[in-house]
């Protein structure tokens, strides 16, 4: 069966550990060919997607080791297997989503069981590789801050001296645990603003990586004259930015920084870290929105971004 990726092979189609039998440590057989179909050369996406769900521990690495131990076996394309797993998982999730009320879907157990393996894969090192190789920037927002805690005391970037709230510290500690589990972060860079630096310090301690401070990772500027005095002024500027689609209207300069200017300064920073595998970029929701189009990233929320 020719496909855009080459020639498909006829494969089991539902290959996971519940269909592989063993007795006394030796393979005895394979069952359930009901989903047999043409697929990519290696029919292992389903196995990876559901790895660890039923067996006592994940078996995918053992499976790869088994293939590698057979001289005649071709080399496995792990990235293709991960892509296949993501595709299968997305299809399964879409089928179930069609059967439930989308407004309550996130609370339905069958939906959760479909989302969890996908989420795990997307946030794993394998997922990063499958989505285009190394060079992933994990754009992450700092922890929570109370921007209205000191009304009128500071002006402009003086407000950026505000530290994390106690909740913000906990959020940063949770993020550090998540990144440690991923195990693939090999550099941390941070905006120079206190809330980002404090978040980056917490990550640094847990990941045992130095923090590089990059001036141009600072938050989107709501007033280029540096005269804003509180959160309200920032929110008003942001509302206008959103209404204008992120850019100044033709012929109409504004005080706020357009998204294109944010992207230019941040891209210059990221270029300097292109040789790293996965970079934790501690920055701001305004920066993340300008770079990815995703608004309102929650405190310590994480958005993968690929430079270029």
């Amino acid at each position: 069966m020719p496909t855009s990726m080459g020639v498909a092979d006829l494969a089991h189609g539902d290959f996971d550990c519940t269909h592989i039998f063993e007795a006394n440590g030796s393979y005895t057989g394979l069952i359930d060919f009901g989903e047999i179909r043409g697929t990519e050369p290696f029919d292992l996406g389903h196995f990876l997607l559901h790895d660890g769900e039923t067996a006592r521990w994940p078996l995918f690495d053992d499976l790869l080791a088994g293939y590698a131990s057979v001289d005649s076996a071709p080399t496995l394309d792990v990235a293709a297997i991960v892509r296949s797993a993501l595709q299968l998982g997305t299809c399964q999730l879409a089928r179930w989503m069609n059967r439930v009320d989308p407004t309550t879907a996130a609370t339905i157990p069958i939906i959760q069981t479909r989302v969890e393996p996908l989420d795990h894969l997307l946030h794993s090192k394998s997922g990063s590789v499958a989505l285009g190789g190394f060079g992933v920037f994990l754009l992450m927002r700092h922890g929570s801050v109370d921007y209205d805690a000191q009304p009128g005391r500071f002006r402009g970037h003086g407000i950026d001296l505000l530290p994390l709230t106690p909740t913000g510290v906990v959020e940063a500690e949770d993020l550090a645990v998540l990144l440690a589990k991923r195990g693939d972060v090999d550099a941390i860079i941070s905006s120079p603003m206190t809330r980002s630096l404090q978040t980056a310090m917490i990550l640094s301690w847990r990941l045992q990586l130095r923090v590089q401070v990059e001036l141009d990772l600072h938050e989107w500027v709501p007033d280029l004259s540096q005269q804003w005095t509180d959160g309200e002024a920032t929110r008003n500027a942001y509302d206008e930015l959103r209404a204008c689609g992120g850019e100044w209207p033709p012929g109409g300069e504004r005080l706020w920084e357009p998204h294109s200017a944010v992207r230019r300064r941040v891209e210059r920073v990221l270029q300097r870290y292109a040789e790293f595998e996965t970079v934790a970029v501690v920055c701001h929701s305004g920066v993340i929105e300008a770079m990815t189009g995703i608004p309102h990233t929650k405190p310590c929320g994480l958005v993968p971004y690929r430079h270029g």
Partner: protein
Amino acid sequence: MSRCSDVRSEAVVAYATGVSGVVPEVSRTLEGVSSVVYRLDCDDRVAHLRLGETDEENLTTDALLLERSGQLGVSVPEVIDVDPFHERLGRSVLIMTEVAGLDLGRCDDGSWPVAGT
């Protein structure tokens, strides 16, 4: 084409008895999401009877695939009987031998070799 519900176990017993000549003990297996499978205990032998998921599914294809896989050296269940469409059950039927042991999701006997050793 619509997905069928389970059939009456008496009908399954009658079908299996007709194939083997012995009345088996029949139990519905709980594993799997889509396939309807019954375990057939007959004296000291165990077999599995699978029904088509819809009234249009013909398990002859699966039987041919199992036989071909077996010829190629893959350890798979042996086909005992296949019926493209059985009137009383209202579906295609496939009876296979049991594969020895447990599936990897259930085995817990500590016999697995440890990866990397």
